[in-house]
């Protein structure tokens, strides 16, 4: 009897190995509709589709996004959308993309090379046409050979979020415009107030260190081509320029702030959750985060009016700039059925133009003509610098050099992490470190065909 049991158990397991057909045949479905051709609420209102949307914003899937689905269904009643929030988004999404049938809409990850975009995502339109409705320089991230594959959900400005009351108490009347002024101001805060840290780096969270890489191009140089000519193709981009501008100035600011004790005592145990409340009620002076943080920090306590936002303190030839750039982009799976792709396009168009997502998150909308959100009105007057796209044929160059050098600019935060570690317990100076980075970068450039 028991013999039979063992044998049948084995048999069941073996057959189920073959019986489960969950795979779908994946092939690219040709599309001839582009996003600009759709008139929301008029075209395709009868379309039926069940869409799966992969998102990194796990925190609002059940709240804000549910509201969006309801609103959208007023125009397109037969389209069902199911959101799937992924926690470790950047890592997981790459694994899922390799299979080809991961859903219909996702936030395009930066790990996909430009020349691979067409293999995974649907063409949303031609850059020239789309630039009439959306800010052109925001479309560049996922455009290849003038075909746009991704549209930003919103745009961020990179600057410093600070507590106005703390700055006032420390006697700072004017916002700092150079790194030296900034460091002096932090010192004043340390001397005259009893904050836990004038500048809180939130080192332990990891992604907060990557945030520092965002300042080194446009905002630090005023040059929208810096990412290409200065970084990807330039010689020794991390060297000291002598005039308090450029990547060196940004990294040196972090180094000096940590070295002079103007940051938290123990970087290894910083608490992101708690820091939001502390910045709100004046226990922290400022933090280096993108504009998306303004709304979050305002909501973290009772002193929403004390929250201010300034651009990174660097002045180039007498002018101040702020790096701005698109946040995560929406992309559509080119392997989905034609109806799904069209329905997805309608939804994306609605999200970008009508949902109010960007403003709600404290970011800029990419639609031409939309206003700045309330929180960022203070940045009026600062020139926003958005990076220009790479030249044709060189789209992957920056990514390749970045990977080969292992500096992980905007990817891993390896550089700012090293800065904090060396400033706290290491022996290397900022000059030694930047010489190292230059060396690695040059070697990576050479192996990718860039010579000086």
């Amino acid at each position, binding site marked *: 009897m028991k013999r039979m049991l*063992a*044998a049948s158990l*084995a048999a069941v*397991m073996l057959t189920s190995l073959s019986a489960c057909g969950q795979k779908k045949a994946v092939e690219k479905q040709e599309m001839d509709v582009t996003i600009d051709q759709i008139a929301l609420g008029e075209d395709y209102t009868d379309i039926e589709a069940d869409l799966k949307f992969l998102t990194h914003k796990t925190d609002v899937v059940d709240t804000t996004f549910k509201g969006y689905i309801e609103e959208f269904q007023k125009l397109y009643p037969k389209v069902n959308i199911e959101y799937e929030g992924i926690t470790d988004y950047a*890592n997981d999404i*790459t*694994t899922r*993309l*390799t299979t080809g049938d991961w859903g219909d809409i996702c936030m395009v990850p930066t*790990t*996909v*090379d430009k020349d*691979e975009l067409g293999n995974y995502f649907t063409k949303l339109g031609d850059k020239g046409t789309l630039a009439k409705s959306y800010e052109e320089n925001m479309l560049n991230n996922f455009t290849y050979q003038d075909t746009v594959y991704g549209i930003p959900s919103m745009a961020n400005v990179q600057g410093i979020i600070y507590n106005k009351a703390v700055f006032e108490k420390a006697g700072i009347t004017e916002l700092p415009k150079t790194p030296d002024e900034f460091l002096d101001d932090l010192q004043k805060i340390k001397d005259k107030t009893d904050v836990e840290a004038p500048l809180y780096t939130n*080192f*332990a969270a*990891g992604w907060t260190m990557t945030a520092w890489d965002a300042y080194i191009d446009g905002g630090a140089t005023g040059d929208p081509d810096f990412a290409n000519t200065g970084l990807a193709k330039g010689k020794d981009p991390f060297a000291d320029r002598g005039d308090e501008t450029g990547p060196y100035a940004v990294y040196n600011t972090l180094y000096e702030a940590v070295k002079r004790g103007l940051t938290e*005592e*123990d*970087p*290894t*145990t910083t*608490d992101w959750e708690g820091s939001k409340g502390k910045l709100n009620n004046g226990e922290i002076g400022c933090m280096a985060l993108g504009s998306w943080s303004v709304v979050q920090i305002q909501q973290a306590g009772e002193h929403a009016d004390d929250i201010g936002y300034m651009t990174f303190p660097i002045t180039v030839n007498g002018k101040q700039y702020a790096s701005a750039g698109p946040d995560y982009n929406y992309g559509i799976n080119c392997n989905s059925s034609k109806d799904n792709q069209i329905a997805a396009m309608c939804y994306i168009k609605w999200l970008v133009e009508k949902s109010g997502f960007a403003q709600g998150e404290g970011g800029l909308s990419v639609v031409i003509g939309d206003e700045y959100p309330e929180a960022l009105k203070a940045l009026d007057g600062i020139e926003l610098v958005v990076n220009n796209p790479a030249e044709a044929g060189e789209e992957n160059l920056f990514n390749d050099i970045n*990977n*080969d050098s*292992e500096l*992980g600019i905007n*990817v*891993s935060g*390896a550089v700012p*992490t090293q800065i904090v*570690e060396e400033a*706290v*317990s290491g022996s290397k100076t900022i000059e030694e470190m930047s010489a190292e980075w230059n060396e690695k970068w040059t070697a990576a450039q050479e192996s990718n065909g860039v010579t000086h």
Partner: protein
Amino acid sequence: MNEKKNFKSWIQSGKVNRKLCIFVFMLIPVTLLVVFTYIPFFKMIGFSFYDMKYIGDREFIGLQNYMEVFTRKDCFQALKLSLYYIVASFIQLALALYFASVLSFKVKGSGVFKGLMFFPYLVCGIAVGFIFKFFYTRGFVLDTVLQWCGFNLDQLPYWLKDTSINNISVAATSIWRYMGQGMVMFIGAIMSVDASLYEAGDIDGANSFQKFIYIILPNIKTIIVLNMILSITGSLSVFEPPYVITGGDFGTGTYFVIMNKLAHESQKVGLASAMAVVLLILIMIATLIQKGIEKYYFGVGDAEPLREIRKRKKRLELEARGGAR
């Protein structure tokens, strides 16, 4: 009718039955092993010969990745950190064995003690990073308890920032988490020891310590040796504690943390695979050495240790020579 009976008795006959039994019983485990472990393993070896990312084309570059593994400074540097974990795992083994032995006999409230000491293993991985970050934060859990014991706050170091001790801090969390598992495993193994042996020991007047050395230890040596092997290999390939608590920063990044960074952040999948293969070869060498020691000193299964066999042979030779004279 007749055929059926013959078939049945043929199956039940000694040799065929034996072979059938072996085959059927091994079929599923070995299949699962091959499909989910060995096939990916060979694929990974394949990856190590290419310069590749997760998405996109790959370029065959032969042994270049391996040369890079040996010439980079950070790879083998990270292996040194494994020493901390090896020491930690031996401490963990000793503690687990101690508590298992104590709790296998009549102790008041043993159920409660077992439950509490098993607690750490039950905590879901997600919360571990959170728990220990706050455990080691200045002035929080650990510092507060030490202050009760009379230490001054100023004397206490920064557990995770101070590079001279942060590896000890992280290795200690590994002991905390896995001691309970080891203890339960040893308790189970101790259960396999024939109870009548203890009675015999009592008659001979053995005390608890002697019972431990002469009755328990020899009878669970298979498990102990396995544990030692797993500890060493686990220490060489440790990943979760440093990754979850410090992300590998401030000098706590072990070999695997570095490998993971290379694969996911710099997209150097080929190089990361090569690193994994190199480590595996190291682990295999370490395991072979250990198995050699095991065979020599302890003996495998019911076989006698080689040491004893050699000793006996020598004795017999001496007697034969003595007798012949």
